[in-house]
């Protein structure tokens, strides 16, 4: 509690006032310069110079008339991807290509590379939970809030219908369950991140979907469903890069689900897997 007032002070004094003041000073400064040279005192404006001046002031006016870009911190996180703006696929592809290159050049076998990709994805996943629930709530007109998922099926559906659309713009494929071993499979027909990657023949077992597996693992961890997740190639003739994410929840998750079914209460799980 003691840290609250300080945080409150700094947050209220920083973003809106200083930002706006700076922006106004900047634009009005431009205007002063433009009109200052137009005043008759120091002038010898030829016709061409005057025309230039008019063009310059017109440009300033046009710039001012354009809607000012909001500070990203002030934009609503509720808005869906259409309003919020999207990242270009090429930019994502180049960035991910560099990530894979880094993971590859660090050496080690395929497992090592996948482990590194997994870790990068994990750090994305643990940050995606809050945002996914807020965005997922904002979908549709009436915006019914998404409640905390308490069952395994619910949390997997959130991944399928909220998390992946938020990250990649497409839903995940169907969810399958191996009842005998309590494994869950999330099927990705064409992972966006590996759309441009040709895995060489000598490391054909490498699946760059390990990054997505990391995202799912981090997401589940932060949503209090600790699980181990791995990506596996499941290519078919039509879908050469189809990937299956295998999700194995920890026993504590299954125990809690059973307890909930029998009328018990929900409880967070302090997972020992501090990956």
């Amino acid at each position, binding site marked *: 509690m003691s840290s609250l007032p300080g945080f409150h002070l700094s947050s209220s004094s920083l973003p809106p006032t200083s930002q706006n003041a700076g922006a106004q000073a900047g634009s009005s400064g431009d205007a002063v310069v433009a009109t200052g040279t137009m005043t008759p005192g120091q002038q010898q404006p030829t016709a061409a110079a005057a025309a230039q001046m008019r063009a310059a002031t017109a440009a300033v006016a046009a710039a001012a008339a354009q809607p000012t870009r909001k500070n990203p911190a002030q934009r609503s996180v509720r808005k869906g991807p259409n309003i919020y703006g999207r990242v270009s696929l*090429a930019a994502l*592809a*180049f960035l*991910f*290509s*560099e*990530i894979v290159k880094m993971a590859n050049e660090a050496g080690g076998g395929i497992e090592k590379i996948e482990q590194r990709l997994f870790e990068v994805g994990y750090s994305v996943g643990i940050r995606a939970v809050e945002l996914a629930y807020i965005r997922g709530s904002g979908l549709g007109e009436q915006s019914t809030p998404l409640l905390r998922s308490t069952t395994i099926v619910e949390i997997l559906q959130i991944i399928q219908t909220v998390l992946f659309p938020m990250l990649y713009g497409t839903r995940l494929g169907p969810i399958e369950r191996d009842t005998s071993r309590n494994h869950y499979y999330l099927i990705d027909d064409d992972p966006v991140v590996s759309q*441009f*990657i*040709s895995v060489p023949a000598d490391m054909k077992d490498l699946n760059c979907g390990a990054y997505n597996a990391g995202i799912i693992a981090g997401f589940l961890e932060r949503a209090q469903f600790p699980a181990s997740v791995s990506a596996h190639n499941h290519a078919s003739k039509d879908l050469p890069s189809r990937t299956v994410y295998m999700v194995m929840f920890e026993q504590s998750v299954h125990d809690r689900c059973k307890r909930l079914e029998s009328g018990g209460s929900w409880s967070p799980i302090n997972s020992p897997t501090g990956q």
Partner: protein
Amino acid sequence: MLYQLLIINKAGGLVYQHIFPQTRAGGTSAASPSPNSNDFLMLAGTFHSIHALVAQFSPVADSSGLRVLESSHFTLFCFQAPTGTKFLLVTIPLSGLQSASSVISHHVTQTGRTVPTSLHSGPPNLHAVATAAWREIYLAYGAFVARDPFHVPEMPIRCSRFDAAVSRIGQRASSGIY
């Protein structure tokens, strides 16, 4: 329609070769005495030098070098990317019944306004078709080669997705879509 695609890096090394499958009436493939890959490496290096020589010969400054090589049995288009990578597209001849002697014709200006007259005597718009096919190939190159983390720039291209894309482009070109 398209016979072959060769990609030459800016040092003159052959980094990619794709032979488009040909079908002719009678079922036999149009088998030419095919040189082995080593020969192709040498030919690519030779072409690279000739390309540079042609640019030197040009009476006009800033020549972009050889663009089209025309013979009785094939036409070779050379497209150069801003990075210096050359894409050679070997296609059907402009006119199959021309005299056997090869004619090297090339644009001397960068804008390429001076189109050799022989270009107009062949099948309609071969130049346009080849250019359109090359645009597609270049897009695929940008998508599947440049963004592939396992491809090293200026080194031989071994990207299965690029192979697939080039095959598709070849099929579309032979079905007359361009």
